[in-house]
C-alpha cells in the first residue's frame, strides 16, 4: 500500500488530497474548515481531515507532493521585473518580502508546517514538487474515463505556463506545448471581472452569469487587446493591462478604450454597459477556446478531450465546445481550479514519476466528487443538541416524503447529506434546494437566502434519464460543468414587448416551465444525477417527480454570498438560522425554522466579506 498526500497552497485555493495505490480516498479545500473563502494558507485542517479519514499520520505517509514549483515562479517574477524596470518598484517592494518569507524556502516551510501536525515526521526527503499545469492536466486526465485523450489546461498563471496542451495515454501524460505569462486567458477574463466591479478570482462566475443580459457589442474593441491566431493561440497587448508589475489588473489605456472607469461595487450600479462588456468578453473567450480545441483536435487526432484549470469552470464555454462536436467525449475535472492541483499532483506522482499501472474506470475515478467530510447520524444529533436546535428524526422514507412536500409548497430547504463535495460546486450533498417550477423562487433565493445579486441564475439538478426530455443535450454532466438550452416545448416564448425589456427586468418574465432555473437566454447549468453517484439525492428527486411530474430541483450551494460552502452540521445550522431558509434536513433530522428559538438567530451575512 502506497499513500500519497497532495497539497495545494499559498496561491489561490488551498487543499489537500490523499490517494492510496492510485485510488482517490479523500480531498477537501481549506476554506471549508477555516471558513475563509478561497483560503490560501497552509491547509492544516484539510490535511488533518484527509489523514483522519484514512487513519494515518503524516509520518506514515509514503510521499508528499506540492502542486507547483516555487522556484520557477520566482524566475518568472524576476524576469517580469527585468522586463519592466524601472517601472514596478511598488509591486516589487511588496512581492520580495513575501517571497523571502514564504516562497523561496518552500520546502522548509512545508516541512515545518507538516511537522507541527506530527512530531514523528522527521525528514523532508519524501516531499516532491509537481508543476502547476502538470498538476492541472493530471487532475483532468488520470481520473477521466479515457485511456487516451488530449488535455487542455488554461488558468491565470502557474509557473510560466498559462495554457497547455498535453497528451495522455494510459498511465503517462506529456505536456506538448504552452503559452506563457503574461499572455493568459484566465487573466484576460479576470481583467474584465475587475473592470466590471467583481472580485478577481471569484467574481468570474458572476461575470459569466451576467453575460446573457447583454449584447456582445464590444467584441471588436476587445479584440484590440489581444492578437488571436487561427489556431486559437494568443498574445495580450500589455499596454492595456497592469497585472505584470502593477497593483491593478488594467491600465489607463484600457479604461480609455471602453470609455467608462472601473465599476466601484459599493457605489455603482450594474448597467447595460457592464452587461454588454460581460457578453462581449464571454464571446471572445468562447471563440478562442473553440479555435484552440479545434486546432489541437486536428493536430493530434484523438477523440477525447479533458479540461482543467480555472478557465474550465466556464461552463458556458464548455457547453459551446460540446455543441461544436469537435470531440466525441469531453471530461472536465470538477475541482478545475487550484484546489484540484492537490489531486493532480498526487496522481502525477503516482502514475508519471512512480510509473504505476492505470486501470481506466468507465465512469471516472472521482466518486462523484463526494470526497470530503461526512457525519454519522449520532454526530449530527450531538452537534444539533449542543446548539440548542429543535429537530425531529425521521426514517428515510418519511424524510424524503416530507422534504418533497416542503419543496412542492415553495419552501427553501437546506439539504445536508453524505460526503462534502470537492470543488466549487455543490452537487446535492451541501445544497440549498427548491422547486424549479416556482416563478418567484429565483428572486427569493437570491435576495432572502443567498443575499446575492438578483441577476444570478440557479442550476437544475435533473435525473439523468429525463435529461433529453427537458434540455437539448444527452450526455452526463455530473459536475455542473456544462450549459445547455431548455427544449423548445418547455419554453415560453417572450412576446415582442417582453423581448424589448431591459436586462434584469427580463427576469420577471416566466420563460419556461421551470423558470427559476432558466436563464434569460433559455440556458441552464446542468447537473445530472444518477443512482450510482448519489443514491439519496436521486431518491429525493425521484420522489419529487412522482409527486409533481417534474424530475428537476433547483440546486444551489449551501452558503450565503461570500461564505464558503457549509462543512459541518454546525455550519449548516448557523447558515439556516442566519437566512430565510424554511427547513433544514441533515441526515435523518428535519428542522423547521418556525420551531427554532429565535434567540439563536444571528446577524449572519455581515460576517462574510462580499465577493
Amino acid at each position, binding site marked *: 500500500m502506497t499513500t500519497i498526500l497532495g497539497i495545494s497552497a499559498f496561491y489561490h485555493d488551498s487543499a489537500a488530497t490523499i490517494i492510496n495505490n492510485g485510488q482517490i480516498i479523500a480531498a477537501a479545500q481549506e476554506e471549508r474548515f477555516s471558513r475563509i473563502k478561497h483560503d490560501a494558507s497552509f491547509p492544516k485542517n484539510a490535511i488533518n481531515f484527509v489523514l483522519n479519514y484514512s487513519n494515518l499520520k503524516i509520518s506514515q505517509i509514503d510521499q508528499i507532493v506540492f502542486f507547483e514549483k516555487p522556484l*520557477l515562479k520566482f524566475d518568472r517574477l524576476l524576469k517580469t521585473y527585468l522586463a519592466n524596470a524601472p517601472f514596478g518598484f511598488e509591486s*516589487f517592494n511588496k512581492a520580495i518580502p513575501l517571497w523571502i518569507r514564504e516562497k523561496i524556502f518552500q520546502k522548509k516551510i512545508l516541512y515545518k508546517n507538516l511537522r507541527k501536525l506530527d512530531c514523528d515526521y522527521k525528514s523532508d526527503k519524501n516531499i516532491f514538487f509537481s508543476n502547476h499545469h502538470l498538476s492541472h492536466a493530471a487532475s483532468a486526465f488520470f481520473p477521466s474515463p479515457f485511456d487516451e485523450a488530449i488535455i487542455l489546461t488554461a488558468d491565470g498563471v502557474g509557473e510560466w505556463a498559462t495554457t497547455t496542451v498535453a497528451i495522455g495515454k494510459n498511465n503517462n501524460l506529456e505536456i506538448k506545448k504552452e503559452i506563457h505569462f503574461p499572455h493568459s486567458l484566465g487573466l484576460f477574463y479576470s481583467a474584465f471581472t475587475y473592470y466590471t466591479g467583481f472580485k478577481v478570482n471569484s467574481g468570474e462566475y458572476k461575470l459569466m452569469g451576467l453575460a446573457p443580459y447583454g449584447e456582445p457589442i464590444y467584441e471588436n474593441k476587445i479584440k484590440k487587446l489581444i492578437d488571436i491566431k487561427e489556431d486559437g493561440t494568443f*498574445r495580450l497587448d500589455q499596454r492595456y493591462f497592469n497585472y505584470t508589475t502593477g497593483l491593478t489588473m488594467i491600465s489607463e489605456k484600457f479604461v480609455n478604450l471602453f470609455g467608462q472607469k472601473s465599476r466601484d461595487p459599493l457605489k455603482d450600479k450594474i448597467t447595460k454597459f457592464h452587461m454588454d462588456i460581460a457578453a462581449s468578453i464571454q464571446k471572445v473567450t468562447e471563440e478562442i477556446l473553440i479555435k484552440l480545441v479545434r486546432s489541437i483536435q486536428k493536430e493530434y487526432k484523438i477523440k477525447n478531450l479533458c479540461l482543467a484549470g480555472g478557465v474550465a469552470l466556464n461552463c458556458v464555454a464548455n457547453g459551446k465546445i460540446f455543441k461544436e462536436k469537435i470531440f466525441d467525449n469531453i471530461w472536465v475535472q470538477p475541482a478545475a481550479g487550484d484546489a484540484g492541483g492537490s489531486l493532480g499532483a498526487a496522481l502525477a506522482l503516482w502514475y508519471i514519476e512512480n510509473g504505476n499501472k492505470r486501470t481506466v474506470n468507465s465512469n471516472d475515478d472521482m466518486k462523484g466528487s463526494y470526497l470530503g467530510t461526512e457525519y454519522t447520524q449520532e454526530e449530527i444529533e450531538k452537534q444539533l443538541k449542543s446548539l440548542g436546535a429543535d429537530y425531529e428524526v425521521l426514517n428515510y422514507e418519511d424524510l424524503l416524503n416530507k422534504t418533497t412536500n416542503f419543496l412542492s409548497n415553495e419552501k427553501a430547504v437546506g439539504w445536508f447529506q453524505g460526503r462534502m463535495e470537492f470543488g466549487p460546486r455543490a452537487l446535492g450533498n451541501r445544497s440549498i434546494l427548491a422547486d424549479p417550477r416556482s416563478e418567484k423562487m429565483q428572486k427569493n433565493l437570491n435576495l432572502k437566502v443567498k443575499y446575492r445579486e438578483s441577476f444570478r441564475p440557479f442550476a437544475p439538478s435533473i435525473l439523468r434519464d429525463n435529461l433529453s426530455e427537458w434540455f437539448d443535450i444527452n450526455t452526463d454532466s455530473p459536475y455542473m460543468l456544462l450549459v445547455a438550452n431548455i427544449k423548445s416545448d418547455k419554453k415560453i416564448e417572450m412576446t415582442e414587448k417582453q423581448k424589448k425589456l431591459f436586462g434584469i427586468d427580463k427576469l420577471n418574465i416566466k420563460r419556461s416551465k421551470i423558470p427559476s432555473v432558466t436563464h434569460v437566454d433559455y440556458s441552464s447549468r446542468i447537473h445530472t444525477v444518477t443512482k450510482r453517484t448519489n443514491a439519496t439525492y436521486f431518491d429525493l428527486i425521484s420522489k419529487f417527480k412522482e409527486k409533481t411530474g417534474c424530475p428537476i430541483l433547483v440546486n444551489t450551494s449551501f452558503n450565503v454570498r461570500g461564505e464558503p460552502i457549509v462543512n459541518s452540521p454546525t455550519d449548516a445550522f448557523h447558515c439556516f438560522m442566519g437566512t430565510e431558509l424554511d427547513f433544514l434536513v441533515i441526515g435523518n433530522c428535519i428542522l423547521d425554522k418556525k420551531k427554532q428559538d429565535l434567540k439563536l438567530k444571528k446577524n449572519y451575512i455581515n460576517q462574510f466579506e462580499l465577493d
Partner: protein
Amino acid sequence: MRIKKITINFLSFTIKTISTFVIAIFFFVFITPIGIVIRLFKKDLLNYKFNKDKSYWIKKSNLKNNMKKQF
C-alpha cells in the same frame, strides 16, 4: 505601557524603512540596469511583441519534469 507601544511602533517602522531601502537598492542598482541592457539587446523577455507567425505556441523542450526538484 505607552512607551512600550511607541518603541514597538518605532522599531517596526525602522525595519520597514530599512527593508524598503535595501529592496530599492536591489531594484534600482541591479534589476533596472540589467533589465535595460537586456532590452537594449532587443531581447523580449516576456514576448511582449505580436508577430506574423502562424502560432504563439511554445513547444515544450524535452526536459523531463523532475519532481524531486523545486525548479
